């Protein structure tokens, strides 16, 4: 179930869109196979950036290209993308097996191998044997692990995460971050993770994008940015 190729470069070319009174303008190249943290003030457009890559928001103009392949007019289902949200990643009334299995086939037509893959993925994230549990009986961390398991079986080269650990307590964030790092080591997908936590940036990110007022204000390697914050707003963010 592991892919060998690293995830694609994501090229945002002059992407413009307007949502209500907010205008967005994204331009940049997100390097493939790396973990890029997306940081910035609330309402600056971090989620909109992810929604645009995933296909939930359609740009008014510009181009979105994955490794040379244009994503324009592609429905979210047709893009090689998995998404993990802060909460509600699992359908609350369905058990874990069904929730993860839907990642393999959207009508749950699973053969024997697929069933085994679901159980293996659950075991990989530390939820072995919990196939029949309902999300309501799980802790916040376990629910996010189950969401990881689904991303694993989907095996898409791009993984988008919108504050996936924001609802967890600090100790748990640490374990989840190391799980994410391990999984990324195996899959080398292109990961975009929105976060408000400077420690998470230090822990996880290879690259960092700083979004402000609907555009990408700064984009560099994490090491550079952490060594010398170029904008006052970034320094502010790193202080936490």
């Amino acid at each position, binding site marked *: 179930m592991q892919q060998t190729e690293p995830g694609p470069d994501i090229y945002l070319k002059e992407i413009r869109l307007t949502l209500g009174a907010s205008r967005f303008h994204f331009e940049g190249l997100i390097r493939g196979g790396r973990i890029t943290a997306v940081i910035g003030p609330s309402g600056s457009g971090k989620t909109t950036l992810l929604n645009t890559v*995933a*296909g*939930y928001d359609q740009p008014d103009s510009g181009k979105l290209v994955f490794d040379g392949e244009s994503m324009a007019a592609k*429905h*979210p*289902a*047709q*893009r090689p*993308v*998995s*998404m993990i*949200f802060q*909460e*509600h*990643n699992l*359908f609350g*009334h*369905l058990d874990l097996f*069904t929730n993860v299995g*839907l*990642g393999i086939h*959207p*009508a*749950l037509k699973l053969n024997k191998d697929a069933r085994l893959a679901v159980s293996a993925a659950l075991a990989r994230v530390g939820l072995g044997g919990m196939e029949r549990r309902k999300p309501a009986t799980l802790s916040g961390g376990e629910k996010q692990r189950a969401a990881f398991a689904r991303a694993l079986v*989907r095996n898409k080269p791009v993984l988008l995460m919108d504050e996936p650990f924001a609802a967890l307590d600090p100790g748990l964030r640490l374990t989840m971050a190391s799980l994410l790092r391990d999984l990324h080591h195996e899959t080398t997908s292109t990961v975009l993770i929105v976060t408000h936590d400077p420690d998470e940036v230090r822990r996880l990110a290879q690259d960092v994008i700083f979004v402000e007022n609907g555009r990408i204000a700064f984009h560099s390697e994490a090491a550079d940015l952490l060594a010398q914050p170029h904008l006052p707003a970034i320094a502010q963010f790193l202080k936490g």
Partner: protein
Amino acid sequence: MLTPQERRLGVAGGAIALAAVLAFMILALLALLAFPSAPAGGTIVTAYMWRILQFTLLQAALSTALSVLLAVPVALALARRPNFALRTWILRLMVLPMGLPVLVVALGLIAVWGRQGVANSLLMILGMDRPISIYGLGGILLAHVFFNFPLACRLAVAALDRLPGEYWKLAGSLGMGPVSVFRFLEWPAIARVLPGISSLVFMLCATSFTIVLVLGGGPAATTLEVAIYQSLRFDFDPPRAIALSLLQVAVTASVLGLLGLIGSADPTGSSSSAPSRRYDGTSLAARLWDALVVLLSVIFLLLPLAAIVVEGLQADLGRLLTSNAFVKAATSSAIIAVSSAVLALSVSTLLIRGRLAAIDSRRPGTVAVAYWRLLGASSLLVLLVPPVVLGTGWFLLLRPLGDVARFAPILIIAINALMALPFVMRVLEPTWEAHYARTTRLVASLGLRGFWKFWYVDRPILVKPAALALSFAMALSLGDLGAIALFGSNDLVTLPWLLYSRLSSYRTADADGLALILGMICLALTIAGTLHQTDRSRRAAD
């Protein structure tokens, strides 16, 4: 956080309201049970009564099944299109049947589906000989569907709108087709609320009076409620009325028991959250299907309402409005509606204050909790004894004291207030409870009490739900035909009763005009209520 005195006053007030409500109901039931000529239980239930019981249950079951079956596809279509420009207006249109007097809507339905109606005229052009009959079982089902299909639809849409936005994003990203979305998301959401919706609709149809009175009739299409009325008003056969009443109470008790088990749906139910964006249903076939079902349901709802306006405008409204009969009826109606609404609001206020006072301490004892439960249940117990049964009991109780007509206005006000009580409580209590929880500590620490506490702390928050509750209660009373049908006389005529008599004596032009006027009054009251609701949801969205 109340002072001991405030707590004592609150508990005592709740007790007074509870005693009044229970006494009014229990006295009526005792009168039924104690009536001297009532023979022992079993023998009175004749074949005739079995037939009526069967028909009551049959029509309620069929009405429920049809309403729910039609509501589901329309709800799915509306929920799938959160950005559809007319969606809010269609959902508002679906509130309308609940707010209009049943008799007024019945006239509109007759205008569309009756012998001379639009539907039959169209079918005659196609060479059929008036194939649709509005009278009998078919008409009763049609009317019940007209009232309850939009109710079921709104509740189902609200259930779908409550699903988190992430679900639809996930469904889109996982590539779920329409069948998968229905199987894994929509159906589980609807299935959760379906038992509550169905039992609510069943309850409303099993106790429906006006529809059956106007469109049913004859032993073949009579329900318990109408049979009670006929036994008392036409045949003057109290034993039969009593037996039927007890049968009716048994039916409502069973349905209420069932409702208690599976949890009722909120009939005022509005979705509080703004619907989330959807990423499915983009295919042409899906768009066409959704457009078709929504269009058909809008036509189904609009035609009778339009007919009320069109037919009403043909009447001589000027003469009608100035006629003696109208002025008299309108005055009685206004007095009864305002009095019963104020009474319902006062009783609710006492009950709610009693409930809050009962559990005011950190650790309320078992007695306090039991009292709190009892006060809450009392507003639902009211549903147990339908208005016609209450009226029958009080009719028997007061008859020895002379002409019952003397007491008629008070009885009608009391019965209408009781009918409105569950609705008033539902509107008022959640807001009040939340307001109390937010402010009680601050109020206690500042030592606010009495009139100025009410004026500065409570009034600004509670005035809107109270106004909504009043408008609900007034609309309910203005449209009520049940209580007035038992007690109406030449001296006491309300607008619905005047309308019904004009209809019975085939003065249809007058009836149409009255229906338009009465409909407009209730529409104004309903709009007052809905305006408030949009106001509230807009603030919640900020």
